[in-house]
């Protein structure tokens, strides 16, 4: 859902290569100068990230509190419908809610990986502690 939008160059552009980690004169990346706001993201990355966060969150609320609420509103329909031998409200609550949360977790983690890709971030897992900021300077691939 976010792949086809090509937002501008990312804030970690030029400073990025000098991020040795021990350089005292490290200039702050823009990420450290822009406010974190859950409702009004200040960077393109945050905007993309929060889209994924809120999008999956709304679906999660439906999966988790939807079945019990629907059962309160239309008890006859949900307890009277039989699916796989289950009364529907029981199936949606006992199996559906955890399954929904699991699938949405996968969706979120994949979308978040795509954001890494889009913004040229690599979490390399090289030996010892030498990986990290420098490894990402090529704007590289994910894993």
């Amino acid at each position, binding site marked *: 859902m976010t792949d086809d939008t090509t937002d501008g160059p990312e804030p970690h552009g030029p400073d990025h290569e000098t991020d040795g980690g021990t350089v005292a004169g490290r200039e702050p990346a823009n990420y450290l100068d822009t406010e974190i706001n859950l409702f009004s993201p200040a960077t393109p990355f945050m905007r993309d990230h929060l889209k994924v966060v809120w999008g999956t969150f709304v679906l999660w609320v439906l999966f988790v*509190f939807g079945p019990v609420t629907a059962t309160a509103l239309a008890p006859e329909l949900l307890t009277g419908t039989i699916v796989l*031998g289950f009364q529907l409200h*029981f199936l949606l609550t006992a199996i559906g809610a955890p399954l929904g949360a699991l699938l949405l977790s996968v969706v979120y983690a994949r979308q978040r990986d795509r954001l890494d890709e889009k913004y040229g971030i690599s979490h390399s897992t090289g030996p010892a502690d030498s990986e990290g900021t420098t490894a990402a300077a090529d704007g590289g691939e994910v894993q």
Partner: protein
Amino acid sequence: MTATADLLVQIGDTGLEPGFKPIPAAITVGMLLLFLGVGYVFRVAEVDDLWVAGRGIGNIENGMAIGANWMSAASYLAVASLVALSGYFGLAYLVGWTTGYFVLLIFMAAQFRRFGKYTAPDFVGDRFYSDGARAVAAFTTLLIGFVYAVGQGRGMGLMSIYLFGTDYATGVILLMGITIGYVALSGMLGATKNMALQYVILIIAFLAGLYAVGWTQGYSTVLPYLEFGDEATRVANTIAAEFTAPFANASYYQWVALAFTLIVGTAGLPHVLVRFYTVENERTARWSCVWGLFFICLLYWGTAAYAAFGTLLGEQTPGLSYPFTGEQGDVMVVLTAQMANLPQWLVGLVAAGGVAAALATVAGLFIAGSSAAAHDLYTNIVNEDATQRQQLVVGRVTIVLLGILVTLTAINPPALIGELVSMAFAISGSVLFPMFFLGLWWENTTREGALAGMFTGLAFSTFGIVNEVLPTIAGINQGEPLVPAAAAVIPATSSALVAVPVVFLVTIAVSLVTEDPPTEVKRLVRQCHSPEPMQRMESAEDVVSGSGGGTPGDD
């Protein structure tokens, strides 16, 4: 009636066969020795290793550790118990204790990894630039560990009745003693290796019992999760309509309040959050959270199946029938295997899995508690020049004291396993979740706001608990809540639905009228959300202060 009563005396309150059983006992002892052996092989003395395992644990292994760390006696024994005892209301436990991981994933897991410190109180102390806030969070961590572990103690005592033929109290003392010795001897590196192993053992034990019952009774074949529908519906139609009737045992409000509390409680638990400190990078934090939820679901989907199978089998078993007692409920998983006439070694394996679940979680709780005491209370407040040796001593003394206190309380527990553990969730959800959430997502949250919010949360959750538990323990008011009207709105197990919005409002209001946090703190928050990679041993503070990473010990 008399015949039933005689039979009950013979089989005991739990319905489990009494007496020492050599093979099940040997399975349990072998399992515990294996844990101790693995703990010994991966033993550590360095303080960095003790708490966060050198930050080198990968995806699936950490996912399994999340699973084992999470799945206590509350998951293994109590969810099936609560579904068997409370029907559809029990499903609120099933839903609350699984789906909360999603909230943890999207709002917190990776951010906590980027923050990169040792403990949950570390986060609160640094984020709210206050040793006072750190102390309150550390105290809360200890309180949560205590309440949570009491439920585990009850599970251990009940399992010991079947496995070792002890009475309940002896079982609690025996198994708690083993747990204390184990945690004090090995640190978290040993524990993380152990947790992956513990997950494998407990999921095998749990599912072996479920598959065997389903197979031998003709209830299910290859996928019991989706095959117990007929059985659940049959229970409702022929034994007890309230097994599936939506609001027969509790109202819609109570259902939602409980599920909400367990969800936010999940996202506020120090021993859960610390698992995200142990991973390589924030991507691993995210994916191990996903794997963790998957591993957790493998067990949770089976809990309602156990409840349905057990209730059906109870009707065919002399001396046992719906409605079950609290003791029978809390051993329902093992009882179901016994009622299905499975071989003793298999019933024993199921029971041993319950012990593994309890032991793994108590280990995680006690480690979180010991680091709260040694690192947050002692080193940061009492003795700033504490050596690593002194920290280890304080940590270990804390584990022993906490263990003794838990054992004494668990000998006469005031509620069911699941209810006790839910009370711990009410505390973490009301006190720590709002601090973590606002701390990470609203950079203007101030020290004063956090302190006001945490005290408000503590007031709500402890009032809810005291209101219901004190009459039971002290034998006053016929065991009824002190303020019945309050118990309906803020139940001991579910106070967070009311508390969380209030705590948010208090924290935000106080933050708005007090001086903004220092710029470095705001930058710390931003660094937790930045997409830029960090070095493995680097914390957000290192980046913000430009000091580089590598030696978290000296900050």
